[in-house]
């Protein structure tokens, strides 16, 4: 039997000299009908380019197939070599036989057309439906991807839907043509973990229902475990390992696969928490947050009145103990970053107290931001960047200061030469190391790490986490570690606070919170985290909406009630 897709020695390059320096350097694989192939790799591995080559969308990004073949079995039994097919043949195949969904649901839908119009177009093009039939089909498609009030939502524009909803619309659209192959390019990476679980569940369900083959691109081994039949691991444009899921996960052959499986944090349900917690006796809070509330007025400005407020953070209370890591976990919109920014004074607290113990320097609290590309001014040299905190503190840029820069740079794994260079000359991981070194310039007591490793590739993530743990003990730092990633939190946190819709719903020792979650949201959150051990597992499709943070003018929430779950573990009482 011929496979659905047989790729041989695929080579793809970009630009004028596409042949000379291909990004994909000879990839081969077979995909049987109804099977799922996961392509795993980090950025630069060529996995996305491979995916975009299969329906030749790579052509529109300046890419060019420079070698190899892609034999695709058509429903009528003929075989088409996609690598050499012309554009009109490809237009006929796209959508109809090969569907695709992308990483960024926020930008992948056309903002000026309604969701309904976009799905209807897919039905019109690929099924020949028109008018009312297309509309009915679009409604059905939305229902099939579990969008409530489908008829109503057809009239919505993309921006009126949440990220998860949009990704469902994308799926509905991709499936409109009943394709026999679905390419999913990191479809959940940009989504919150609970939403990710829903999308994964949906994909698994639909795949089974439609007997469709799937190519699933991801960087997350944990996610792969749940869905793939076959795994192909890519590194720098080449396939380093390929085989059935269980074989690859349980007995990886290639060093890189092993590295991905071992070095990268995987969530283990509280079993991997740190055990180096400082002695119980000296639990002195360096930052005490009491009843922190941050609200952003809506409207307002020149000649305008305020109509209400976004209650971004509502009555948050916690202590950060010297030398400890407190992780704040939550999904987007939970208020975790706003909390961090309020502690740094970047946003004004509407009410509540933030007390900082006097520290080793004038500014005992420093911060490292999520995006190492955005948090370093691209127009300044590393030396200027590193000098800034000292200049702000009134120090002079002299040999002693430069000595400290070199010391810190070397401590975070960079060389002294770095001082002369500009941020764009560094990789993402190196830049984050720079940010960390800069945060340490003034010898702080507390470092707030706002999603500090989230933007990094998984293997880099692991190394930065290790560095952070080393620095913590060396410099006696307390970390306020903001993250959405349970696996990372499990690695670094001594204590965990879970935030949901602007409020802390559960807080306590990391081991307790992660292994015995009490609050319903915490449990839902933990259940959604993919685990290596949960292979081909069905996730539940759960569509609980997040409560709106927008409150009318003058709104005040009920005071919270707490329940003590354990010694250092308490949760909010649910209504």
């Amino acid at each position, binding site marked *: 039997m011929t496979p659905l897709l047989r790729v041989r020695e695929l080579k793809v390059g970009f630009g004028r000299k596409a042949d000379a320096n291909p990004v994909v350097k000879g990839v081969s694989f077979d995909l049987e009908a109804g099977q799922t192939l996961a392509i795993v790799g980090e950025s630069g591995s060529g996995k996305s380019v491979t995916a975009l080559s299969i329906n030749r969308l790579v052509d529109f990004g300046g890419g060019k197939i420079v070698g190899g073949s892609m034999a695709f079995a058509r429903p009528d039994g003929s075989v088409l070599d996609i690598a050499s097919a012309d554009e009109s043949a490809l*237009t006929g195949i796209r959508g109809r036989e090969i569907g695709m969904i992308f990483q960024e649901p926020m930008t*992948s839908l*056309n*903002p000026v057309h309604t969701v309904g119009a976009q799905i209807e177009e897919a039905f019109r093009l690929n099924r020949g439906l028109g008018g009312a039939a297309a509309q009915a089909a679009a409604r059905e498609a939305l229902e099939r991807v579990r969008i409530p009030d489908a008829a109503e939502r057809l009239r919505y*524009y993309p921006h009126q839907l949440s990220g998860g909803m949009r990704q469902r619309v994308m799926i509905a659209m991709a499936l409109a043509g009943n394709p026999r192959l679905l390419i999913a390019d990191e479809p959940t990476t940009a989504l919150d973990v609970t939403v990710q679980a829903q999308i994964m569940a949906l994909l698994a369900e639909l795949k089974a229902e439609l007997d469709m083959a799937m190519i699933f691109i991801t960087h997350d081994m944990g996610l792969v475990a749940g869905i793939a039949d076959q795994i192909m691991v890519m590194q720098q444009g080449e396939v380093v390992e390929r085989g059935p899921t269980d074989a690859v996960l349980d007995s990886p052959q290639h060093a890189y696969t092993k590295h991905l499986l071992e070095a990268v944090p995987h969530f283990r349900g509280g079993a991997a928490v740190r055990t180096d917690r400082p002695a119980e006796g000296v639990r002195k809070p360096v930052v005490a947050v009491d009843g922190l509330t941050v609200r952003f007025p809506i409207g307002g400005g020149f000649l305008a009145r305020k109509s209400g407020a976004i209650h971004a953070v509502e009555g948050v209370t916690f202590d950060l103990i010297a030398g400890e890591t407190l992780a704040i976990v939550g999904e987007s919109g939970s208020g975790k970053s706003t909390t961090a920014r309020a502690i740094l004074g970047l946003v004004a607290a509407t009410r509540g107290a933030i007390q900082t113990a006097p520290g080793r320097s004038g500014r005992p609290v420093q911060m490292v931001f999520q995006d190492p590309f955005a948090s370093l001014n691209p127009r300044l040299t590393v030396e200027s960047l590193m000098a800034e905190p000292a200049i702000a503190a009134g120090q002079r840029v002299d040999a002693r200061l430069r000595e400290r820069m070199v010391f810190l740079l070397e401590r975070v794994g960079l060389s002294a030469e770095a001082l002369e260079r500009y941020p764009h000359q560094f990789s993402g991981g190196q830049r984050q190391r720079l940010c960390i070194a800069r945060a340490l310039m003034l010898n702080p007591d507390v470092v707030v790490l706002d999603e500090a490793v989230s933007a990094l590739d998984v293997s880099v993530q692991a190394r930065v986490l290790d560095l952070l743990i080393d620095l913590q003990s060396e410099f006696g730092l307390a970390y306020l570690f903001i993250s959405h990633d349970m696996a990372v939190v499990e690695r670094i946190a001594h204590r965990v606070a879970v935030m949901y819709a602007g409020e802390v719903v559960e807080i306590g020792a990391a081991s307790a919170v992660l292994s015995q979650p009490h609050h319903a949201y915490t449990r839902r959150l933990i259940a959604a985290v993919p685990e290596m051990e949960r292979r081909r597992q069905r996730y539940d499709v759960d569509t609980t909406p997040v409560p709106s943070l927008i409150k009318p003018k003058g709104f005040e929430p009920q005071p919270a009630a707490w329940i003590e779950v354990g010694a250092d573990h308490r949760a909010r009482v649910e209504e």
Partner: protein
Amino acid sequence: MPYLARRLLTFPLILIGVSLLVFFSIRMIPGDAITAMLGTESGLLTPVQRQALAEYFGIDQPVLVQYGRWLSGVMQGDLGLSVTHGRPVLTIILERFPLTLELALLSMVIALGIGVPAGVLAATQSERPSDVTVRIIAMLGQSTPGFVVGLVIIYVLSVYFGFVPTMGSFVPIWVDPLANLAQLIFPAITLGFAFAASVTRISRASMLDVLSDDYVRTARAKGVPKLSVVWHHALPNALIPVVTLSGVEFGYLLGGAVIVEQIFALPGLGRLTLEAIGQRDYALVQGCVLFIAFNFLIVNLLVDLAYAALDPRIRLGAR
């Protein structure tokens, strides 16, 4: 729509600022209505005669008193009386406005009609010969002074075709549409030439950006044919900068195209204003500037509304 209301609220503020600026600066220019009317002969006037004329022209009072009087008139919709035309300022402006408006609209139609397709073509053929050709023509168009285009058009028309557009007075479209078109099409081409060039350049740039957006890739992934990708999916998203540019240009054109009006002898707002300055017809200058500024604000508002029409994120508010 509170946003609209808020925008409208800033209008009087800006207009009062504009009126103050024009009211006092026009009076700072040497010469007054008397020298403008009599030229060097005004030197023959006796003081009594001069006073009589100053009274006649309404420039005998202190400037602040004049402004107060004028402003209170404006509040009641009275822009004053033009001393050179002997008629209400608003009447004169409203007589001249249809020409200016039509000329601006016609130029914009030409500019958009040529510029958008040319820009889209260039973007889809990026870096190919057709793109390079379009870009070079556009740059030449942008760099040719309007008066050169106008003078050449008139010269060619009169020498080779024995024809010039009706000059001096305006043939309104409701009187004779054909003659109206014959009169305005050439000035409109003169204005539309550079305008079309700008539109081409901006449509091309914007289209290039949009064509690399994710949703265009999505459209292709679902098998949308090339033409539909460009016109249905990409173009509506690429129009915002085009609207911005057209709005600014249109706003300027509504203020009158002085040079083109001069060359083609069209009685438009631009020349009216220029001549009013030349004749030191203060009330008329003030009226014109206020009217032009008001138009500009309205056009800006329309541009914002056009954004909303084009982009549902603006229309319905981003989440």
